């Protein structure tokens, strides 16, 4: 049997700030546990070393304002690079699946990056997905986000992408950051029902989580038939997490991993660094590698101590039923009834960057193309902490763009450069792997090609 690959990158010399939850100490006890258990010596587990992702890898996903180098530190490139190393190992068949046990996390990072939000700068999963498509031509990919917070960054990036299914279950956005991820967020007109959000009430236990998994997530995955499954393996649904209110155990997480059978699991949040992470990480790793995890137990845990209230269970059943019905009727949906008939679909967004206190206003336009997912334009304004205002425009051409969208995308980029309305204009051409960043003031044009 081929082994499970792991990259453990705790970034012991990187923190957002000394007392921030995302600090050096976060994976210290996890290291102690994994080392003491000797997990990296097991024949079914093979450790790999990270590399640095390139600016090109980042530009394939994000419009970093003003430039990639301004938003990204070496730690981010290593965390993303670790995922890419593991993606290579999965595609070469050297490993059967893999765990990127890395920080800093990424699932709150959206397409446009003005700063850090929800502890994230760049989206490790999205960077991996674009890399997999570019390098290996992978078609359909599913992301299942099991972090307690809505995976809003990943959702944003793939909202109009019919080839990437984003499923996120999380504590209800009315009670927790980032305040989104409701059942009506289902994807844009070209990718309707490629985004599924399952808000769960506070107090959800292993039983509730597995009800969702068995009755909704797994059936949807079976229907979607992805070539690869990526798990955003946040661990803050744990009953001891200080930032959330859920009641999931290490065992619950391991069972989830065993059922989901992701090709790649990527650590996201989880801030009960002593009471949860050492045990949850160990259980997930054992589950991926097919070892018995039934003896992994948090100190102080007693069977039966976490009971789900009937109200919580009923609420979970209602959400599952609602989404299940939507999914089962997905072929009968009339997009025009939902999205109208305009040539472009537009949505306005306000994005708050909690870590850096930045307010961003966005207008996103995607061409409703009958032949491809359509090129997308995003105009975004924000004042950065240094005081400078940025008004940027980014044009994104999808991987399988049609000739018309491809041409219009480039034309839009050239037009946006000339208007003088924007401080920076970006082009993201995923079809031929060309990326450009234009600074209106200096008239400097950066150009990367894959």
């Amino acid at each position, binding site marked *: 049997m081929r082994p499970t690959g792991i990259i453990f*990158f705790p970034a*012991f010399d990187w923190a957002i700030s000394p007392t921030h939850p995302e*600090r050096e100490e976060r994976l210290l*006890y996890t290291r102690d546990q994994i080392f*003491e*258990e*000797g997990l990296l010596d097991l024949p079914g587990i093979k450790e790999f070393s990270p590399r640095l992702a390139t600016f090109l890898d980042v530009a394939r996903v994000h419009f970093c304002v003003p430039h990639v180098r301004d938003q990204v530190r070496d730690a981010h490139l290593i965390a993303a690079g670790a995922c890419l190393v593991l993606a290579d190992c999965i595609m070469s068949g050297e490993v059967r699946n893999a765990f990127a046990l890395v920080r800093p996390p990424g699932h709150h990072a959206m397409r446009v990056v003005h700063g850090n939000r929800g502890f994230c700068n760049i989206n490790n999963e999205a960077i991996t997905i674009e890399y997999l498509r570019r390098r290996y031509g992978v078609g359909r990919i599913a992301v299942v986000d099991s972090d307690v917070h809505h995976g809003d960054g990943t959702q944003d990036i793939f909202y109009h992408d019919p080839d990437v299914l984003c499923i996120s279950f999380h504590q209800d956005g009315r009670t927790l950051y980032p305040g989104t991820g409701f059942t009506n967020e289902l994807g844009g007109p070209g990718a309707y029902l490629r985004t599924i959000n399952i808000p769960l009430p506070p107090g959800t236990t292993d039983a509730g989580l597995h009800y969702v998994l068995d009755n909704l997530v797994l059936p949807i995955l079976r229907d979607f038939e992805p070539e690869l499954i990526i798990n955003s393996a946040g661990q803050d649904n744990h009953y001891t997490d200080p930032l959330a209110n859920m009641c999931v155990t290490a065992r619950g997480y391991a069972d989830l991993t065993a059922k989901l059978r992701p090709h790649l699991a990527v650590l996201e949040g989880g801030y009960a660094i002593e009471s949860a992470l050492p045990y949850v990480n160990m259980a997930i790793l054992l589950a991926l590698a097919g070892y018995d995890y039934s003896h992994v137990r948090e100190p102080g845990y007693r069977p039966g101590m976490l009971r789900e209230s009937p109200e919580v269970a009923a609420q979970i059943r209602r959400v599952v039923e609602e989404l299940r019905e939507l999914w089962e009727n997905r072929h009968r949906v009339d997009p025009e009834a939902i999205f109208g008939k305009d040539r472009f679909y537009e949505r306005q967004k306000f994005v708050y960057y909690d870590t850096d206190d930045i307010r961003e206003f966005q207008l996103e336009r995607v061409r409703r193309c009958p032949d491809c997912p359509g090129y997308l334009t995003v105009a975004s304004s924000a004042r950065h902490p240094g005081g400078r205002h940025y008004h940027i425009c980014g044009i994104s051409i999808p991987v399988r763009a049609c000739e018309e969208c491809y041409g219009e995308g480039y034309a839009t980029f050239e037009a946006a450069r000339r208007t003088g309305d924007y401080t920076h204009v970006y082009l993201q051409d995923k079809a031929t792997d060309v990326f450009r960043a234009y600074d209106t003031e200096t008239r400097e044009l950066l150009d990367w090609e894959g």
Partner: protein
Amino acid sequence: MEIGIDVGGTFTDAVLLEDGYVRAVAKVPTGEDPLEPMLAALDTVLAGVPPERVGRVVLSTTLITNLIAHRKYDPVALVLIPGPGLPFDHYRINPATYIVSGAMDYRGREIEPLNEDEVRAAARDIAARGYRQVAVVGKFSPRNAAHELRAAAILKETVPELHVELGHLVTSQLNFPRRILTAFLTCATRQRYATFARAVAEGLRRRGLTARAFVLKADGGTLPLEAAARYPVETVFSGPAASTLGVQALLPPGETAVVLDAGGTTTDLALILSGTPLVASRGLKVEDQFTQVRGLAVKSVPVGGDSVLERIGRELVVYSDRVDRPYCLGGSRPTPTDALRVLGHTEIGDPGRAYEAMALLATDSQSPEEVAGEVLLMVTEIIAGEIEAMFREWQEEPAYRVWEVLQRRTRKRPNLLVGVGGAAGLAPLVAQHLGARALVPPYAAVANAIGAAVARTTLMISLHVDTARGRYVVAEEGYQGELEDPRHFGEHSAVQLATAWLRKRAAALGAGDEVDGVEILRQDVFNIVREWRTVGRLFDLVVQTPRGILTHVKGVNS
């Protein structure tokens, strides 16, 4: 004067150094008994030397490696305290494994008390089954050894004649399965080692030697011969360490090189980086099992000068497990040494017989020179491939910090290959294959013994401080203490505390005067933050006596 002796699988080598000059060398065949060839080599280099002028004798021996390989060790019972985690089956490495309840966590807090009744029951059963050696190992015992200590006390109380070894004293690093195995092997070999050490000491005494005697460890450091009875397993694989140190001594200080030690049955590869041998990032693998023994990063390739060659169909095959003397030295089978002889890369053996050996392997129209070329190309490719793999492993060593990942990217491959050992003649061929320079220094055949002679004592202390709990642990000494003033305990105090313990440890092992400085191997500090407030700090320090050698060999001009 210093004497270095390396007892290898085929030969035992010895050298006598005086002020950095090689004054005498010896090479005798190694037989069944590990003591006899060692004393014979010693007598050769001692000839005509007043014994009282020798200040130091360092011995590198395969004794423990062989005991483990042939399972000629004492039966051992294991008493393990794993607690939650992997299923217990992972730990039953031995017919007599007793698992008792109790658990500690990573900060040394008790999760579950030790079940003393289970320990007593195990003690009675162990005694009834006739075991005398017991290793007690608990998960996270380097963080808190209370359960191991209590279990040992109960075992001794119940069965006073038991000899009990404790996991946390054997190794301070976190890795429970490796700690179990290392404690097990320590327990299994310590008595035999002690017997051997006494015999060596007696042999030295009878020759009128008053020199201090040391034994070489896998990491290229030495321990006082008799004190090493506490850590016999540390002496495994000292042979490759000896050769590597020998090359270090034969090169100018600060040199970077690949060491190729071509022996009879194996070729050992190692790296010297800026004058210091590379240490393996994890503990050594002994008989295919992971231990926590620290050693140099040595790669052993199962091909040597005496490996048997055979032609099967059109394929040329080299056997790693079948060995004969080279044909040119009177053996019955062709070997790589014969090929080296035919092409003039070595001077040993009878050239006529070497040609005959190659003729035995020839296909149709091949000349002996062509066969020799084919043989050496094959062997060279095998070794060059392993050197490439060794470089990759070095460049991809685990890195858990941003700076480590960045630093690793700057690692440049050495372009000097130094050949030592019996088949050092392979070095220029391998170097050519890799596009590197080759060097076969003077005394290449006894580089291993030189390495033993110049090795210094290495000792290490791991200090783990938890100021939030007001405690500290010195794992190697099994000491758990309270901090006097946890609020004002900083990095400086941590270094001072570790240094004091290192000196204490050196004194206890009878090597106090060998410590003339301290090297910090690891220094981690983590803030313990709870609810946005720093409530304490964790310090992880590993300090050691400086690595290095007593002297570089003079008069070699390499």
